[in-house]
């Protein structure tokens, strides 16, 4: 019954964008999530950890995060998510908000 953790790394050769400051976005409401993004030397890669009550969607998480990292060209970043049944659309929205906050603050 314990919470489910999904962890993976994303390494794109095109990643060039880094963030300067750690950022926190979102509230773990129902069908929502929060995300921490922190700069971290990962040889250009992005590492992800998701904690969620939902099981069986590990591949979907990977695809959504791939899409996000691809479109932003993010690199050298640690992403941590607390999820509470957010849909893929909400996940992308929160990630984009976090990215925007991390790159403009």
């Amino acid at each position, binding site marked *: *019954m*314990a*919470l489910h953790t999904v962890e993976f790394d994303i390494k794109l050769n095109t990643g060039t964008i880094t963030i300067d400051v*750690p950022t*926190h976005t979102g*509230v*773990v*409401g*129902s069908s*929502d999530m*929060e995300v*921490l993004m*922190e700069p971290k030397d990962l040889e250009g890669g992005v590492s992800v950890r998701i*904690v*969620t*009550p939902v099981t069986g969607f590990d591949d979907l998480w990977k695809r959504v995060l791939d899409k996000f990292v691809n479109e932003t060209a993010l690199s050298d970043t640690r992403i*941590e998510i*607390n*999820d*509470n*049944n957010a849909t893929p659309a909400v996940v992308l929205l929160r990630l984009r908000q976090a990215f925007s906050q991390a790159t403009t603050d």
Partner: protein
Amino acid sequence: MSKWNDLQEHSFLESNARDRALGIVDDGTFTELAGPFDRLSSPHLELLGDAVAFDDGLVSGVGRIGKTPVFVVSQEGRFIGGSIGEVGGAKMANTIKLAIDFHDKLVADYPDLSEEEKPVLVISFETGGVRLHESNAGLLAHAEVMDLFQKARGKVPVISLIGSKVGCFGGMGFVAAATDVIIMSEFGRLGLTGPEVIEQEMGKEEFDSSDRALVFRTTGGRHKYIIGDANFLVADTIAAFREKVAELAPLPVAAFEEMRRVGSPETVERQVRGVALAAEMHPQDARDVWAKAGNDDPASLTDMPLAAFLGQVKRLSV
């Protein structure tokens, strides 16, 4: 425009806990303590397989308004109804403890310390009280908060802000009642027993919890202002709450004692007179009490604009 400036005109009702905390104090002065990067989430929720939050649904920290250090607790209603568990409870209690200790240190270190340089504590409530997933720890944390409020008396004034979606109920309802001063918006709700439980106890004929207007008349900001449970009623913006806090923050602690509704033999006697009135009237509806307070057309008080309401409403005196 900075985020802080942008926040000021936000609806307090719609704002999350962190935005309320940031916006209440001066721009750029807020330091969060035990914030999301400390990743102090609830081990009990994890064990039960329920979603966790990096801040456990409670923002705690310190900022400044003018010369006044302002300790802040802000509850997040969207995370399990703003409920209090072990971590959030410890954050709330320890914020009060830090404020008291900081007060004592400043008084010791600065012989010329002025009233407005002494710390205050602001709590933005949005909670139904104890978190059932870790109920025993939540309950014990409530008791610690009440104890610390009494320890703060004469030192650190405690200001309540109530204007968020969930309202302020359960154990946190009497925690709020025990603070020095309560600022509400008309969308805030304050009580002990939530509407569903009253319906369950008394029957739907007596109290229909799905009747939103009835629920607001019973525990909403306008009623609480009339009955004297809320000291101030302000507009639904972060700026309006902030302005009232800024006005109160420099006041000497004695001025806060005068705003108390309970906490002394004198205030208890005043409330005893209120209870006698309750026994005598047995109001079917809060409007009966509004009429008793001298409002000739109580029904009209519900929908008139806030400024008009504040201009003409008569408050209950017992």
